[in-house]
């Protein structure tokens, strides 16, 4: 019985991949999408750093940068079908609202623990946005930015 289920399971995965692959191939500007998604993660990491360093005054600036990255994503999908664009817009708005909340709270409730909890929620909202895009275009929101801990720079210190 169990062995009969395995081919069915594999067939389901195969079908899912077959459906997803053309979506990836159909994106009009995959490089622009990839850049915008990577920038969203980069700025999200900067939010986290400013909170960790208790540099709350800088958080609104990070929020402005997040909006700039969001605008880049809107530009990257502007030629996509309306149905896809509206899905992206809905999840992007949710992510923007989550980061806006952190920005607002940084002024009214400058508490690193509370802000970090909100940041975790914002990352979840961002992940939901990323789920709309092919895996090969999605950065890992938990990966540190490119320059950290690589290359010879840290070794010289």
């Amino acid at each position: 019985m169990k062995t009969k289920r395995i081919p069915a399971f594999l067939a389901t995965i195969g079908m899912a991949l077959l459906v997803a692959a053309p979506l990836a191939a159909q994106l009009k500007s995959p490089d622009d999408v990839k850049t915008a998604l990577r920038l969203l993660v980069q700025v999200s990491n900067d939010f986290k750093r400013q909170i960790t360093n208790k540099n709350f005054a800088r958080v609104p600036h990070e929020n402005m940068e997040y909006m700039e990255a969001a605008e880049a994503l809107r530009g990257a999908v502007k030629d996509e079908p309306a149905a896809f664009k509206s899905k992206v817009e809905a999840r992007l708005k949710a992510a923007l609202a989550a980061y806006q909340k952190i920005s607002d709270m940084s002024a009214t409730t400058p508490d690193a623990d509370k802000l970090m909890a909100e940041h975790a929620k914002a990352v979840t909202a961002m992940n939901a946005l990323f789920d709309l895009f092919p895996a090969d275009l999605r950065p890992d929101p938990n990966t540190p930015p490119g320059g950290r801990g690589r290359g010879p720079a840290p070794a010289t210190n």
Partner: protein
Amino acid sequence: MLALLLGCGPKPKPEPQVVDLYIASDGDFLDFVPDTLTVRTGARVCLTFHHAGKIISARHDWVLTYPGKLDALTKDCLDLDGILPQGDPLVLARTPLCDKGQTVMVEFIAPRPGDYPFVCATHPEDMRGVLHVTS
């Protein structure tokens, strides 16, 4: 007599070698391209930094410090939000901060041989590199 005068006078100091270095941000991403530079000790370095960003309004610069001072400089940059004071003893050379699309320059004499870390003062944990000064 003339030969004596010409031969025995003080020797003029040799002009330092002039070296042009170019470095940029990796577009809007927090990396230097290239992240390693090499120059000979004593050279007069003319370094040009280009902020190649087009999307994000973050400001960048290029700040050179001494071997072994990367952590201290990083801490200062974070504590001071990237605005380092004039005459900061940790800073060997630096460009002004610049906005996306802008280019800035700095001139300095390459110090004694060694590996000198550099950072962007506003993103010191991400934008890093090394200036190799050779003998």
